[in-house]
C-alpha cells in the first residue's frame, strides 16, 4: 500500500478508555426509554445544571427528525457545536445496541472538535422497554419512564427497567391525575432491580433533576478514579 502516514496512531475502536492521542476519553452516559417519557427534558435539565462545572456534549438519536437536537438547540442548553444528531434509519435500538458505529463516531467527533470533554450524554430515540445501550458505546445508562405511561411498567420489567444503572420515573407531579400509584411503582422497581438505584422526579418541582445530577457526579468520580480499561 502506498499510504502516507500522516498520523502515527489510528482511531480508537469502541470502549477503549483512551483516545488516539493517549488522553483519557470522556465518560459516556446513555439515556433510553419510551417515547415521551422525558428523556430530552432530562438531558436539557442536566445540561443546565452541570454545564458550569463540567465540559459536556450531547448526542441525540432521533427516529425520523432532528427535533430532539433542535429542542436542545432552541433551549440553548449548550452551544450548538456541542450537540450532534445521529440518524437511525427507523431503528433507534439498532443504533445504540446492535450497530453502534454512527454513535461512536459522533462521540469521538465531538471530543475532537470541542474537547476535552468530561461527559457525553447519548440520548436514544424513543423506543420500547427492551432497548438498552451497548457497553461498547456507553459506560453507564439511565432508563427514563414516566408515571403517565402506566404504573405497571416497573412490574412488567424488560431489559431497560431491569438492568439500567439508574431508573428514572419521571413526571411524578402527574400521578394523581393519571391514577398512578407511586408506592406500587417503587415496590415493583425494587423487586425488579434489587440494589440498583431508582429516582422519582418531576422536572416541575424544586428538586428538579438534582438526584439524577448527583448520580451523574458519582459516575464521573468513579470514572476519574478507575484504572484504564
Amino acid at each position, binding site marked *: 500500500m502506498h499510504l502516507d502516514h500522516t498520523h502515527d496512531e489510528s482511531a480508537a475502536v469502541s470502549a477503549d478508555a483512551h483516545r488516539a492521542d493517549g488522553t483519557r476519553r470522556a465518560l459516556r452516559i446513555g439515556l433510553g426509554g419510551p417515547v415521551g417519557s422525558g428523556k430530552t427534558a432530562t438531558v436539557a435539565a442536566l445540561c443546565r445544571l452541570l454545564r458550569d462545572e463540567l465540559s459536556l456534549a450531547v448526542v441525540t438519536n432521533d427516529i425520523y427528525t432532528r427535533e430532539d437536537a433542535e429542542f436542545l438547540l432552541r433551549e440553548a442548553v449548550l452551544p450548538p457545536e456541542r450537540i450532534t444528531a445521529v*440518524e437511525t*434509519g427507523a431503528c433507534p435500538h*439498532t443504533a445504540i445496541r446492535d450497530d453502534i*458505529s*454512527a454513535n461512536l463516531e459522533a462521540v469521538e467527533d465531538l471530543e475532537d472538535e470541542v474537547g476535552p470533554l468530561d461527559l457525553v450524554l447519548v440520548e436514544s430515540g424513543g423506543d420500547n422497554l427492551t432497548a438498552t445501550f451497548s457497553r461498547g458505546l456507553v459506560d453507564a445508562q439511565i432508563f427514563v419512564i414516566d408515571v403517565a405511561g402506566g404504573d405497571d411498567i416497573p412490574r412488567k420489567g424488560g431489559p431497560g427497567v431491569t438492568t439500567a444503572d439508574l431508573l428514572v420515573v419521571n413526571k411524578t407531579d402527574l400521578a394523581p391525575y393519571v391514577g398512578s400509584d407511586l408506592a406500587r411503582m417503587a415496590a415493583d422497581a425494587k423487586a425488579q432491580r434489587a440494589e440498583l438505584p431508582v429516582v422519582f422526579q418531576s422536572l416541575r418541582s424544586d428538586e428538579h433533576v438534582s438526584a439524577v445530577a448527583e448520580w451523574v457526579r458519582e459516575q464521573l468520580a468513579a470514572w476519574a478514579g478507575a484504572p484504564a480499561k
Partner: protein
Amino acid sequence: MSRAALLVLADGRFPAGGHAHSGGAEAAVKAGRITGARSLEEFCRGRLHTTGAVSAALAGAAALGVDPVALDEAADARTPSVALRTAARKLGRQLLRAARVAWPSPELDALAARFPKGAHQPVVLGTAARAAGLGAEDAAHCAAYENVSGPATAVVRLLSLDPFEATAVLARLAPDMDKVARKAAEAARRARDEGPETLPAASAPLLEVGAEGHAGWDVRLFAS
C-alpha cells in the same frame, strides 16, 4: 479463501452502519418511483448495473491491493453528488471500525490513519475483504449484494412491504449480481495492471439527483 468469512462480511447484521441508509430508496418512494415489489425490483436492477457495478469493481480492486488512495480518488470522481460522497465516506468509516476489530490488519490500520473521517465504503470493503483472506470476486459479490439488499430492507420499513416479497426480489436478482461481480472482478484485475482510471464509471443520474434532494429534507427515516 474462506467462504464463511465472506458470509460474515456480507451479513446484513455486520455492524457497519448500513441499517440507517436506504440507498436512494426513501427518495424514490417519496417520488412515487417505488410503490411495491415490482418497482423495487426495477429500482434495484438499475442500481445494481450502475452504482453497483462501480462499487463492486472498486471493492474488487481494493481486495487485490490496488493503492486505496488512488481508488478513493477514483470513487470520488465517479460520485458527482456531494450527499452521496458524504454518505459513502461515513459508511466507509463505520465499516472500517467494525472490520478492524473483526480482522485486525496493518493495512486496515493504515487506512484508518490515512482517512480518519472515512474513505469511500467500497474501498474499505475491498480492504476488509483482503484482511479477511478474501479475493476480488468475493469483495465484488459483497458490494453487489449490499448495493441492493440495503434498498430492499429499507422499503420493507418505508412501505410496510411484505418482507417475503422483498427477499424474493433479491433472490430474483441473484443471477444479475453474479454477472456484475464477475465483470467487476475482471475490471479490478485490469485496474491493478493498467491503473484505476480503467475502472467502470457507470452512473445513475436519478440516484444522484434524488440524494441531493433527500439530504435537504427535514423529516426522513434514513440518512441517505
